């Protein structure tokens, strides 16, 4: 993928390699994402899409290559220095129930990143959570419920609210609507589009549905056997 030299990309991935044992699952992959831009990553199961996402997030350290995020190179950083940066790139996963703790109320799940970050304020915190709930189209009453008391679509909205809690610049969306019922998918995609326009977020959108990626993304990169071809 070509680099536009005069605009600083939000995320710039260069020559990323991830190996599982002797198998190379991500094979010299390069791409970039600008603020407000959506890059679609498409390909069959096992092609390395999610491994790429994990390596970008530094949840799985890549074997070689560079990940530049917001002007800083992540692969050489230790956990302590990564921590503040992690807040600004947040994942949203496929299974909305699996990504929220069944024991926590939605309100607490959304507040948790603020506690971890050390920015929880007892006076303004609850209002911030209420604002996040509203921003993703949930009622304040949904905050008192636990994941199993919500529909899949509502749960995914809660997952998005939690990702937004730390005011991220980049969302890694790993099949965010694939597990949802068809009548709920369009609503979640519309919400993501609106949030992007309002907040200028960059999106890495991983999906195996070609038509959906074409609709939703500014650019599409196709992955096969760990390698990338842009289209």
């Amino acid at each position: 993928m070509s680099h536009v030299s005069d605009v600083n990309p939000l995320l710039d991935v260069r020559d990323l390699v991830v190996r599982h044992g002797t198998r190379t699952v991500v094979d010299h992959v390069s791409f970039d994402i600008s603020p407000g831009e959506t890059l679609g990553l498409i390909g069959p199961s096992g092609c390395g899409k999610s491994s790429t996402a994990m390596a970008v997030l530094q949840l799985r350290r890549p074997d070689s290559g560079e990940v530049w995020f917001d002007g800083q190179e992540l692969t050489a950083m230790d956990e302590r220095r990564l921590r503040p940066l992690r807040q600004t790139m947040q994942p949203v996963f496929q299974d909305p129930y699996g990504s929220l703790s069944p024991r926590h109320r939605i309100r607490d799940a959304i507040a948790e990143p603020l506690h971890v970050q050390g920015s929880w304020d007892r006076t303004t915190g609850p209002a911030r959570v209420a604002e996040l709930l509203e921003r993703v189209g949930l009622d304040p009453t949904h905050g008192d419920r636990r994941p199993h008391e919500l529909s899949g679509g509502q749960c995914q909205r809660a997952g998005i609210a939690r990702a937004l809690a730390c005011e991220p610049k980049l969302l890694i969306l790993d099949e965010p609507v694939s597990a949802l019922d068809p009548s709920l998918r369009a609503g979640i995609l519309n919400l993501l589009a609106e949030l992007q326009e309002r907040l200028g977020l960059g999106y890495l959108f991983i999906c195996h549905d070609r038509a959906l990626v074409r609709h939703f993304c500014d650019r599409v990169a196709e992955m096969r056997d760990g390698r990338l071809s842009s289209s």
Partner: protein
Amino acid sequence: MSTPSTPSTEVLLSVRDLRISFGAVEAVRGLSFDVHEGEVLAVVGESGAGKSLTARALLGMPPRGATVTGSVRLGADELVDAPRSVRSALWGRRVALVPQDALSALSPVHQVADQLAAAVRSVDRVSRKEARARAVAALEEVGIAADKARAYPHEFSGGMRQRAVIAMAMLHQPDLVIADEPTTAQDPETQKQVLDLLATRTGAAGASLVLVTHDLATVREHADRMVVMYAGRLVEAGPVGEVFARPRAPYTAGLLASVPEAHPVRSTGLRRLPAIAGAPPVPTDLPPGCAFAPRCPLTDATRCRTEQPEPETHDGRTVACHRWRELPDNPAELFLETV
């Protein structure tokens, strides 16, 4: 479309006023439709619409604790309330199931071919050797080589396991195959292969296929007719081409409009998709009147909210909606406002 010829009009299976309840909660609420000989009928709906329960009732295998009323008639046999001996005599011979999860449908501790051989011997009194030979031949017919027959299910890929259970379902040439979400959790290429195989195998045997799915692309590709379910009731039924081209129920229209492939890339310069607002109701808390009314852009304050619409049939199309005649030519626009 799987069958080039139009399906015969002979009715193979007839469902009338099917109701399935658990205690006071009714999950399938008066469902009627026919499956014709040799056709592929898709049953479409979201989780909780009652489609899997319906599939089990068609097989004469309602889940424990369920109360089933109404009628499911396969030829001369009535399956609702029939004793288990009557129903089990049909299993494998006249009706067969291709389950959602092939891994849990197969025993992990037996070779795949042995499991097929056991299925052969459960119906036909043949020698073990003969049964094994038929099992291996059946696997070969779905593209699993004879040298793989000694394998255990965990040694197969997801697609191979699904092909093996298709082979098992087709062993005794059933009249009716029920496939309940046969391709969930597989990637699109495998999905297509499995569905193509299912359609060709049932087509070659002259069997009817009931395909339970929530995937509209699958329906368009593989089914002749479709039944759309919402909250335990039929909202629309008809030939796939006609329903996709001109849906009559607002729910079907919204569902079809919200799939991005229906729209050229960012044609309007907007990324907003038409979307159905809200979420499906839960069976314990159904709204009065039409169950879709709270999400429906055509809903009126009186009739839709109080009186449940009954299915009506005109020119081979069935619809259950008080206001279907008022659905505009481009119904997608009705669903554009919701975020």
